[in-house]
C-alpha cells in the first residue's frame, strides 16, 4: 500500500477535476477510476456558495481525499496564502503546490516552489509539489520537508507521455519520499510505464476528462496503473539488447 505522510492509499491513481464536460460526468469518472486522492483547483471552488451544483458536492465520498491545488499563484508568498485559505475552507492540511508564473506552458518555478515547500512544511502542511523532473530539486525538496515529489512526465496537458523518462528514473532511484508522476500522461500505457519504472503513483486529469468516454477511460487507467505496479513488484525481466555473438569475444580464454 502506498503511504504518504499519515495516509495510506489502495489506489495509486490520483486524478484531477478540471476540463470535464459536466460535474456529473466528472463524478462518474472519478468513481470509476477508484482514485482516493483528487486534486481541486482552489480558483474553481466557490467558498461562498451552498449551491448543489458546486464542484465539491460531487466529490463527497468517504474514500475520496481532496487535494487542493494552488494553480494560478505566481510566487511562494501567494502559494502560502492560498494553502492557508485551502486549509481553512476545505479542512485539510494537504496541498498540491503549483507555482507556475508562466501561464502559457504552465512550467513550475523551482525556486519559488522550494521556498514555499520550506515554509509550508514548517507550518505543518503535507506538501506535494508539482515540479520539473529535476533530481537535484527533488533532493532539496526532501531536505525542505516535502511529503512527496510530483515531477512532470511532459508538459502539462500535452498528453505526450514520459518525455522525461531518464530523469524520472534517477529521481525514483534516489528518492526517500513517494514519487508521483504528474502531467503529460496521455494514455493508460504511459501510466503503466511510469508504474513499471517504480513511480509510487501517477496523477492523470486531461487524458481522462477529454477522452471520448471519460468513464471508460478512467477504468482503463485504473487497470493500467494496477498492472504497471504489479509488473514493478514482480520484477521485470531486463530486455536483452544484443544478440549473442557466434564467435564470443572471450572465447580465446578457453583455447
Amino acid at each position: 500500500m502506498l503511504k504518504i505522510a499519515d495516509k495510506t492509499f489502495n489506489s495509486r491513481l490520483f486524478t484531477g477535476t478540471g476540463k470535464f464536460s459536466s460535474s456529473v460526468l466528472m463524478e462518474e469518472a472519478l468513481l470509476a477510476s477508484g482514485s482516493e486522492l483528487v486534486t481541486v483547483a482552489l480558483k474553481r471552488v466557490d467558498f461562498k456558495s451552498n449551491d448543489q451544483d458546486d464542484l465539491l458536492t460531487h466529490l463527497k465520498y468517504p474514500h475520496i481525499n481532496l487535494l487542493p491545488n494552488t494553480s494560478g499563484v505566481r510566487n511562494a508568498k501567494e502559494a502560502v496564502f492560498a494553502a492557508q485559505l485551502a486549509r481553512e475552507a476545505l479542512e485539510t492540511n494537504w496541498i498540491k503546490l503549483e507555482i507556475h508564473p508562466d501561464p502559457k506552458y504552465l512550467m513550475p518555478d523551482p525556486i519559488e516552489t522550494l521556498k514555499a515547500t520550506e515554509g509550508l512544511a514548517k507550518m505543518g502542511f503535507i506538501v506535494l509539489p508539482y515540479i520539473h523532473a529535476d533530481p537535484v530539486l527533488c533532493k532539496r525538496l526532501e531536505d525542505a520537508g516535502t511529503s512527496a515529489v510530483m515531477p512532470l512526465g511532459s508538459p502539462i496537458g500535452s498528453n505526450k507521455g514520459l518525455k522525461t523518462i531518464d530523469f524520472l528514473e534517477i529521481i525514483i532511484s534516489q528518492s526517500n519520499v513517494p514519487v508521483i508522476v504528474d502531467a503529460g500522461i496521455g494514455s493508460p500505457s504511459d501510466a503503466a510505464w511510469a508504474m513499471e519504472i517504480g513511480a509510487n503513483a501517477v496523477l492523470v486529469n486531461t487524458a481522462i476528462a477529454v477522452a471520448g468516454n471519460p468513464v471508460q477511460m478512467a477504468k482503463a487507467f485504473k487497470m493500467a496503473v494496477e498492472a504497471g505496479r504489479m509488473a514493478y513488484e514482480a520484477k521485470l525481466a531486463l530486455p536483452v539488447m544484443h544478440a549473442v555473438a557466434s564467435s564470443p569475444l572471450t572465447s580465446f580464454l578457453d583455447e
Partner: protein
Amino acid sequence: MNNFTDIFKSFDWNETKASIYAKTSQDVEMALSAKKRSLEDFKALISPAAAPYLEQMALISQQLTLKRFGKVIQMYVPLYLSNECNNICTYCGFSFDNKVKRKTLSPIEIMQEVAAIKDMGYEHILLVTGEANQTVHVDYFKKVLDLIRPHFAHISMEVQPLDLEDYQQLTPYGLNTVLVYQETYHQEDYKKHHPKGKKSNFEYRLETPDRLGQAGIHKMGLGVLIGLEDWRTDSFFTALHLNYLEKKYWQSKYSLSFPRLRPFSGGLEPKVEMNDRELVQLICAYRIFNEEVELSISTRESPNFRNNIIRLGITAISAGSKTNPGGYAVEPESLEQFEISDERSPQQIARMINAQGYEPVWKDWDNSLAL
C-alpha cells in the same frame, strides 16, 4: 527593443496585405501540417486560399482547444459604468458628437447593478467605460474596485488606456485583466476613425499592452474592431502583437476578441464586411496558431452563430449583456454602445452550452490567489 512600436514600424500595411493575399493552397497545407505555426503560417490560415480548408481547420481547432482547455466555457458579463466620452469614434455609440444624455453610475447605482448581475449567477465581471478623464479616472476606478471586489471572483476592465503608474496602482485593488483593443492597426485610417480626443493618439494606444506587461497584469486582451479595415491584415498585426507580448511579458496571460462592427444610433456602416464563414476561419486560425490563447465571444454575434462556435475553439462567452450604464437595473433605457444580437439569458446560454457537451464555468479565479 523598448516596445511594440519599434517592431510595428518595420512592417508596411500594404506589403503585409499583399503577402497574405498571395498565399496559396500549398502554403495552407504546410501550415496545417506544421508542428508549430509561425506568423507566415498564420497568414496562410487567414488568407482566402484557406477557405476550402475550413472544415479541416475547425477540426484541428476543436482538438487543440479540448486538449488545453477541456470541455468548459467561461462565463462573463460586462458592467458598463459610464457612457461619457470625450473621444470622437466614427463607429461607436458613445462618440462625443453623438448628442445624447450621458450617465456615469454612482456608488449606490453600481451596487444595484451588481445585485442584478449576481442574481444572474456571475462571478467574472468586465467593467466598461468610455473615456472621460474628468469624471472616470483612476480614483473613480479605485472606488469602483473597492466596491465590487467582495462580490466577484475575477475582475476585468475595458476602459481608456492608462499610464503605467495607474495600472500599478489598480492591481492591488483586485484588477486582474485589462482589455485594450487597437481597433485597427492601419495607422492612417485609425486617425480617420478617431479624429478627436485622447484616443486619436495611435501610438499611446499601441503601447498600452507594453505598459500592462510592465505593470505585471495577470491577463490582457487584444483585438481589432472588424469592419474598419481589411480584417485579414488587421488580424495579422494582432497575432504579431500577441507573439511579441507573449515572449516579452511571459508571466501574463492573453485573450483575443474579434468584435464585428454592430449598428448603433447614427453609426457607421462597416467598410469591410466579414461573413460568418470568415469569422469561423479567423477563430480557428487564431487557435491553430496559438494553442494557449483564450478566445472570447460576445453578444454581438447571433444566437445561431454562438451556438455553433462553442465547440470550435472559443473559451469564454458573455450572455445577458447590457451595453449601457444602468442597463441591468438602474436605467435600462440609457444610451447603449451597440445593439446586441443574442438576447438570451445567462441561464439559457448555460443550458445551450450543456447541450453541446460542455460545462459553463462561472468561477475560474479567486481574488485571494493574487497578493
